[in-house]
C-alpha cells in the first residue's frame, strides 16, 4: 500500500470475517447496547428494576407464597390459625366460584350455561382463525343462529307460533297503534281550537288503520285458524317455510338459478326444525330462568358480547350517516352521537332501568337486562361511530371516485372499497372501545344486575368467609379474569391488524 491516494483501486485479497470487537449479541450484548449504554439508560434501567422489585415481589408473595390454598371456612385464612401473615385466601374463591360464574342461576340448570359457553367457544374459535374455511356459514351461525339458541338455552321457555304468527302479531300491533293515534286525534279535536283540522286528520288516520286492518285480515285470519289447530307451532312453521322458500326461489332467479337459494333456505329451515325439536320449544322448552337470577361472569359475558357485536354495526351506520349528504340523516346522526357521548354510562343505565318504564305504555315491559343491553349498545355505538368516522376520513376521495367510475353504486362502493379500508385503519381504536366496554360492564351492578364484580362484592357479605384478606383475594381474582379477556382481545387485534394490513408492507 502506498501513501499516494490513487484514483483507481482493485481489491486483491478478500477480507476474512472477524468477530465483533465488543460483544453485541447475547445477554451481555443486550446489557451493553440496550440497558447500560448511556447514563440516562443506566438510570432508567435501575429505576425499572426497582419498580419491578416493588411490584412483582409483593404480588407473588401475596398471591402464592403467603397464600392459603385449602380450607373449609374463614378459620383457615386467619393468621392465628395459619401461623403466618396470610396473603390470598384461595379457598374462599373456591367456595364462591359457582356464584362468581353463574350468580343465582339455579344449580340444577347450570349445565345450560356451560353448554351455551361451549357452543360460543365452538363457533367463535374457528371464526377467529383466518385459515379455516366456510367463514360465511360460520359467521351466520355465530351472529344469527347462536343468539337465538343461546336465548332459549339461558332463558328457557318455548314458542307458541312461528314466522306467520309473529308477522301477523307485529302488523296487528302496528295497526292498533295507528288506530289509537287516530282515535286520540279525534278526541282532542273536540276541545282544540284547530278542531276541524284535527278531526279531518284523525279520521284519515283512523281510516288508514281500518284499511290496513282489512289488508292484513287474511294473515290474521290464517294465524287464528292455525292457533286453533292442535299443532299450531308446526303448522305455522310449515306455512312460513313454504312461503320463505318460495320467495327466495323467485328472488334467486326462478327455475334457472334459484336452485341454490332454494336449497340453502330449505337447509336452514330443516336446521331450525331440528333445533326446535331438540330443545322442545314446541312444548314449552326448558324451564324459564328469569334474568334477575343471572349473574357473575355469565352476565359480564352476555352484556359485553352483545355490546361488542351490536355496537359495531350501530357505529358504522352512524358514522356513514354523519357523512351523508342527506341533511336529515346527517343531523340525526350527529345529534345521536353527541347525545350518547355527552352522558355518562351510569346515567344511561340508570335512565334505561328506572326511568324508561315510566315513559313506556303500561302493558309494554322490557326485561331489565335487555334494557341495560340496549343502553350499552347505543352508548358504545356512539363511540364506535366516531372511531369509524376517523377511518372513513383517512380514505382519499379518489378511492370512491374510482369505484364510482367503474359503475359501483354507493352501497357497493361503501361496503367493498371504503369500509374495508376504513375499518383496517381503526382496528386499534375499535378494540380499544371493546376493551373499555368489557370493563364498563361492571357498571351494570348499579342497576341491580350482578355481573362478575357485583357477585364478588355480594360474596364479601358472607360472614363465613370474612377475613382481612377476603376482599383483596376477590379483587385479585376478578382482576385476573378481566385481564385475561382484555389482554386476549388486545393480542388478537394485533394479530388481525398485522394480517389485514399485509398490503401496506412491501
Amino acid at each position, binding site marked *: 500500500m502506498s501513501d499516494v491516494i490513487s484514483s483507481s483501486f482493485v481489491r486483491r485479497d478478500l477480507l476474512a470475517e472477524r468477530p465483533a470487537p465488543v460483544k453485541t449479541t447475547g445477554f451481555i450484548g443486550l446489557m451493553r447496547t440496550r440497558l447500560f449504554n448511556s447514563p440516562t439508560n443506566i438510570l432508567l434501567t435501575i429505576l425499572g428494576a426497582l419498580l419491578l422489585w416493588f411490584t412483582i415481589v409483593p404480588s407473588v408473595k401475596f398471591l402464592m407464597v403467603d397464600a392459603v390454598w385449602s380450607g373449609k371456612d374463614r378459620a383457615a385464612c386467619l393468621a392465628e390459625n395459619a401461623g403466618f401473615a396470610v396473603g390470598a385466601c384461595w379457598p374462599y374463591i373456591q367456595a364462591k366460584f359457582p356464584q362468581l360464574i353463574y350468580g343465582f342461576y339455579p344449580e340444577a340448570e347450570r349445565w345450560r350455561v356451560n353448554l351455551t359457553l361451549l357452543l360460543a367457544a365452538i363457533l367463535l374459535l374457528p371464526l377467529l382463525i383466518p385459515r379455516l374455511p366456510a367463514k360465511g356459514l360460520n359467521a351466520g351461525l355465530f351472529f344469527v343462529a347462536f343468539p337465538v339458541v343461546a336465548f332459549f338455552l339461558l332463558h328457557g321457555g318455548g314458542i307458541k307460533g312461528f314466522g306467520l304468527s309473529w308477522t301477523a302479531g307485529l302488523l296487528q300491533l302496528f295497526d292498533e297503534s295507528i288506530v289509537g293515534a287516530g282515535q286520540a286525534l279525534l278526541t282532542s279535536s273536540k276541545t282544540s281550537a284547530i278542531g276541524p283540522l284535527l278531526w279531518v286528520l284523525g279520521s284519515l288516520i283512523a281510516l288508514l288503520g281500518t284499511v290496513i286492518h282489512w289488508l292484513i285480515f287474511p294473515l290474521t285470519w290464517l294465524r287464528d285458524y292455525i292457533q286453533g289447530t292442535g299443532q299450531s307451532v308446526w303448522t305455522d312453521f310449515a306455512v312460513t317455510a313454504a312461503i320463505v322458500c318460495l320467495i327466495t326461489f323467485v328472488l334467486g332467479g326462478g327455475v334457472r338459478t334459484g336452485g341454490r337459494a332454494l336449497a340453502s333456505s330449505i337447509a336452514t329451515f330443516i336446521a331450525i326444525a331440528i333445533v326446535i325439536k331438540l330443545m322442545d320449544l314446541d312444548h314449552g322448552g326448558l324451564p324459564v330462568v328469569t334474568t334477575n337470577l343471572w349473574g357473575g361472569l355469565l352476565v359480564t359475558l352476555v352484556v359485553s358480547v352483545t355490546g361488542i357485536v351490536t355496537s359495531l354495526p350501530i357505529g358504522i351506520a352512524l358514522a356513514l350517516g354523519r357523512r351523508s349528504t342527506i341533511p336529515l340523516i346527517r343531523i340525526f346522526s350527529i345529534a345521536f352521537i353527541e347525545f350518547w357521548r355527552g352522558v355518562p354510562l351510569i346515567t344511561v343505565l340508570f335512565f334505561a332501568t328506572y326511568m324508561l318504564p315510566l315513559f313506556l305504555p303500561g302493558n309494554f315491559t322490557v326485561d331489565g337486562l335487555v334494557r341495560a343491553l340496549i343502553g350499552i349498545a347505543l352508548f358504545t355505538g356512539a363511540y364506535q361511530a366516531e372511531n369509524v368516522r376517523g377511518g372513513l376520513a383517512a380514505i*382519499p376521495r*379518489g*378511492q370512491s*371516485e*374510482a*369505484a*364510482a*367510475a*367503474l*359503475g*359501483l*353504486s354507493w352501497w*357497493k362502493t361503501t361496503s*367493498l*372499497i371504503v369500509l*374495508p*379500508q376504513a375499518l*383496517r385503519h381503526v382496528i386499534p381504536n375499535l378494540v380499544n372501545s371493546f376493551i373499555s366496554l368489557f370493563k364498563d360492564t361492571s357498571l351494570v351492578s348499579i342497576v341491580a344486575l350482578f355481573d362478575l364484580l357485583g357477585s364478588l362484592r355480594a360474596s364479601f357479605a358472607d360472614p363465613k368467609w370474612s377475613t382481612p384478606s377476603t376482599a383483596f383475594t376477590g379483587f385479585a381474582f376478578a382482576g385476573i379474569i378481566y385481564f385475561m379477556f382484555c389482554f386476549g382481545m388486545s393480542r388478537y387485534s394485533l394479530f388481525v391488524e398485522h394480517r*389485514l394490513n*399485509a*398490503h*401496506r408492507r*412491501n
Partner: protein
Amino acid sequence: MSEPIVKISGLNKWYGEFHVLRDIDLAVQKGERIVICGPSGSGKSTLIRCINALEEFQEGEIVVDGIELGPNLKHIDAVRREVGMVFQSFNLFPHLTVLDNCTLAPIWVRNIPKKDAEETAMKFLERVKIPHQANKFPGQMSGGQQQRVAIARALTMNPKVMLFDEPTSALDPEMVKEVLDTMVDLAEEGMTMLVVTHEMGFAREVANRVVFMDAGQIIEANTPNEFFAAPQHARTKLFLSQILR
C-alpha cells in the same frame, strides 16, 4: 358523418360563483383520439369528469352512446358502464390484489361469475404486460406498473370510451414511456379516447384532434399537425411556446 359517441353541447358549470366551464361544445366520433391540453386550472379535469358524471353541471347536455346525461344526472349508472377512466393518482384499491382490483367491477356491477371475470382480467393484464404480478398488492408495484393496472382495470368493463386525466404526470420520467406505450397500443386497437395530457409527443403521434382549453373555454381545436405547426390564437401560441422549449 355518423352519430358521435360523445356529444357535449352547451355545457356550463359553476363552482359556487366560479364559472369553471363555459359553453363547451365537443363531439367525439367513435374511434377518435382527442388530446386536451391547456394551462393549469383551465378546467380540463373538470370537463372530462363531467363526461362520466363524477362532477355535476348546471347547464347543457352530454350524450354518451345515445344515453343522455342532463344536469339532473339521470342515467349515471348506464353512462358509467360505457366509460372507463384512468386517474392521475392511479386510485387503485390498495387493500385488494391486482387481480381483485380488476375483477371487482365485472363481478359486482356486471354480475359475471368470478372465474370468467378472472380470465378476462388476466387477458387485460397480459395486454398491459403485467400478468406475473396479478397477486401483488398495488403498494408493492412501481408507479408505471400501477398505472398500467389502472388501465387494465378500466378495460375489464369493456368501455366504449376511455378517459385519461393526466395519466403520466405523477410518474418518474422512465415510467412515462411504458404507460404511453400502453395507451398507444390501445389507440391502435381503435379505442375512443379523451386524454388530458401535456405529453405533446403522444399528441402528435396518436391524436386525431388536439383541443386547447383556457379559462374554462375551448380556445382552439385542430389536427395535431396544424395545431403545432400553425397555432391560430395568441393564447395557444403562448402556451405552446412555454411548453415546447
